[in-house]
């Protein structure tokens, strides 16, 4: 029996660690030692609590006080005021725009519309303690399934729950299981796809780091249902902490006898090991992933045969995503009906989304399927940051599409998003404000896909490069009539002809930005102008002579010495050599330097002369 009276939960998810959580933890240990409070306070490192933007965050029980952006300097005050005198430190609490203070975690608006199923324990338990996982009901689902159900019973439960794959495709989970279950092969494999490569998605990382036993339990239940006795966790090498935590969890489960031979006295035996990637986005595709586990290049192979028929080492294999496994124990504990009562007609349960970009509360959220984009971005996400206006949201990473203001009331489920050219993907939600250029964003995603294309099939290898060339042309001021149509033609062909999901979905960002922001493409091509002043060739810097005080700072800071003038004449930019570094704007004390949309007429004239010259050579 301990003397502990306070549980101090420090978020040690990767987000908070990156903003200094570990230093704070050390500082707490020091201060508690100094003040002789070591016996009374429990310091617990948890997984991701969600609101990464406010990191490092912590929750202090029994009151459930929530502190944000804690620095090592704040620690002493927390200990002396809160722990000793019982006066929580108000200045570290979250405040909204109206300066309302939220003292406890429950009150924080970010958490209010959330329903945590997969993330239930993330940020609440110590991920390295199997006991804490068991305390929250962990491994009870596995025990119940193994001792009271047949594999077919278990499949029926998942069928009834309506669970669909959380990795992107949205394939009904029970169907994969059923196919492998019905296969009479002696050896079958189960794989956990932890190769979360979608830029802007980090729920799988947080789950593996924050609640590894849940994923392990979900995997074991699946393995029992389909008849596999060995499994692989395939985790990106970029996630060293997730790899460490899963390995640790496997060792703990084996020690307690929750893994290994005849688990819970049943006939079911199971073993799992961890394999890591080595930096290849395409390995998130299941056939590529299987090749990578086998020690080969991660090239995808054509389907069929599907992995369920011929997977790892040619044996029937189920590949499920981390978050999918994360839902399974709770579905068995609370029942399929409970799970199916959340969400929409075709998309049941909850989904974890990663909110990023120009939004106030970035981080991980779990909400019922069917919530509108507006609720997700403005209620849970707290709206746009820095007083900017919402412009677009990219759903599903580089494979998804963008949606705009007109779609804010669209319910977020697999079908509604697909109808509008976006997709659920793995749940990355990149919010963009009105300062973003959609042509530039589309080019950026295309650049990513060209980099990550494995090069095996030509539509993806050659076609995407063509699309990127056209986009580069447009954003550097050389776009021509017909480029938009060419992008659409290429995009549609690549979607139809590519071998795997990467190529099939890579044109989506371009196609969807053309659909909803065609006028931006047009003004880039016809007017040689980028209204948001992002594309450097399609904007220029200008010094307002009425404001300029002739201090010469800009001229001194210019790396190419293209600014000239004097105190009396004021300063001007010679547009031709200007490299648009923006130094002049940064240093101007009176804000006389501004960005102006559109290519400067002098530059346009020079380019025109050059093209004419090259035509002459051609002739």
């Amino acid at each position, binding site marked *: 029996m301990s003397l502990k009276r306070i549980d101090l939960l420090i978020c040690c998810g990767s987000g908070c660690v990156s*903003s200094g959580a570990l230093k704070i933890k050390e500082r707490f240990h020091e201060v508690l030692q100094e003040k002789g409070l070591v016996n009374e306070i429990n310091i617990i490192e948890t997984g991701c609590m969600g609101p990464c933007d406010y990191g490092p965050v912590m929750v202090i029980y029994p009151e459930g006080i929530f502190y944000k952006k804690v620095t090592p300097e704040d620690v002493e005050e927390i200990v002396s005021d809160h722990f000793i005198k019982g006066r929580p430190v108000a200045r570290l609490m979250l405040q909204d725009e109206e300066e309302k203070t939220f003292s406890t975690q429950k009150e924080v608006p970010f958490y209010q519309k959330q329903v945590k199923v997969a993330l239930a324990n993330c940020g609440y338990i110590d991920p390295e303690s199997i006991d804490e996982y068991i305390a929250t009901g962990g491994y009870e689902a596995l025990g119940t399934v193994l001792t009271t159900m047949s594999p077919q019973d278990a499949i029926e439960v998942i069928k009834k729950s309506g669970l669909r794959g959380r990795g992107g495709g949205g394939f009904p989970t029970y169907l994969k299981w059923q196919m492998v279950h019905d296969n009479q092969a002696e050896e079958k494999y189960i794989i956990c796809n932890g190769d979360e490569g979608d*830029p802007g998605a980090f729920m799988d990382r947080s789950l593996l780091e924050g609640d590894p036993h849940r994923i392990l339990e979900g995997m074991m239940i699946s393995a029992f249902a389909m008849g596999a006795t060995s499994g692989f966790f395939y985790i990106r090498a970029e996630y*060293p902490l997730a790899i460490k935590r899963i390995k640790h969890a496997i060792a703990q489960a084996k020690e307690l006898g929750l893994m290994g031979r005849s688990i819970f006295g049943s006939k079911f035996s199971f073993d799992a090991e961890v394999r890591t990637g080595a*930096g290849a986005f395409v390995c998130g595709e299941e056939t590529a992933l299987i090749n990578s586990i086998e*020690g080969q290049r991660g090239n995808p192979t054509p389907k069929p045969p599907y992995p369920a028929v011929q997977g790892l080492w040619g044996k029937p294999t189920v590949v499920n995503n981390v978050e999918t496994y994360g839902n399974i124990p709770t579905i068995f504990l609370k029942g399929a009906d409970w799970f199916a009562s959340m969400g929409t007609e075709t998309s049941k349960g909850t989904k974890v989304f990663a909110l990023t970009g*120009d939004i106030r509360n*970035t981080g991980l959220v779990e909400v019922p399927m069917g919530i509108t984009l507006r609720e997700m971005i403005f209620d849970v996400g707290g709206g746009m940051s820095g007083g900017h206006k919402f412009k677009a949201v990219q759903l599903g990473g580089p494979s998804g599409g963008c949606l705009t203001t007109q779609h804010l009331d669209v319910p977020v489920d697999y079908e509604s998003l697909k109808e509008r050219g976006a997709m659920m993907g793995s749940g990355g939600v990149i919010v963009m404000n009105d300062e973003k250029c959609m042509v530039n964003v589309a080019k950026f995603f295309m650049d990513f896909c060209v980099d990550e294309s494995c090069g095996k099939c030509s539509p993806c290898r050659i076609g995407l490069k063509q699309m990127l060339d056209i986009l580069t042309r447009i954003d550097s001021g050389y776009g021509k009539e017909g480029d938009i149509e060419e992008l659409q033609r290429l995009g549609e062909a690549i979607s139809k002809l590519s071998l795997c999901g990467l190529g099939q979905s890579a044109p989506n960002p371009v196609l969807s930005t053309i659909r909803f922001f065609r006028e931006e493409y047009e003004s880039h091509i016809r007017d040689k102008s980028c209204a948001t002043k992002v594309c450097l060739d399609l904007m220029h810097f200008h010094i307002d002579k009425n404001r300029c005080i002739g201090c010469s700072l800009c001229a001194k800071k210019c790396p190419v010495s293209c600014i000239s003038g004097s105190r009396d004449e004021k300063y001007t930019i010679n547009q031709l050599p200007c490299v648009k570094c923006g130094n002049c704007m940064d240093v101007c004390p009176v804000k006389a330097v501004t960005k102006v949309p559109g290519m400067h007429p002098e530059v346009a004239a020079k380019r025109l002369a050059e093209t004419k010259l090259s035509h002459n050579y051609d002739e």
Partner: protein
Amino acid sequence: MTLEICRKYAPNKDNLIQILHEIQDTHPQHYISAAAVDIVAEYLHVPANHIYGVLTFYTMYSTTPRGRNIIRLCESPPCYIKGSDNILRRLKTVLGVGTGETTKDGAFTLELCACLGVCGNAPVMMINDDVYGDLTEEKVEEIVNKIRGAK
């Protein structure tokens, strides 16, 4: 050394990726040499060209020597939206190298990488196994100098 690492794993082809990781991570210059490839090829009974195929497919492997510390700046959209290009510019100035290059003293190699999955704290970079988030131009300079000083 290389052979000792190999022997920790069963001589099966599917251990190739893990073996290569360990060879690279334990090498002071964080790369996989031609000599190492030959040793692994012999141990696993696979042709060396298969190993080269794998090495060059995955972006995390290097076949040329690199610095003691590998800086990997995320160039994915969430970081880009939050200004990773400014961070890159500052890193290049502070280190005096371009992307993919190693500083003269062999302390740092600057690389760009795909999403590190810490997008809530964009822009983000990883130095070896440590993640640094909410980067500003001042902060990266401080971090680099700190690691330099520790050496």
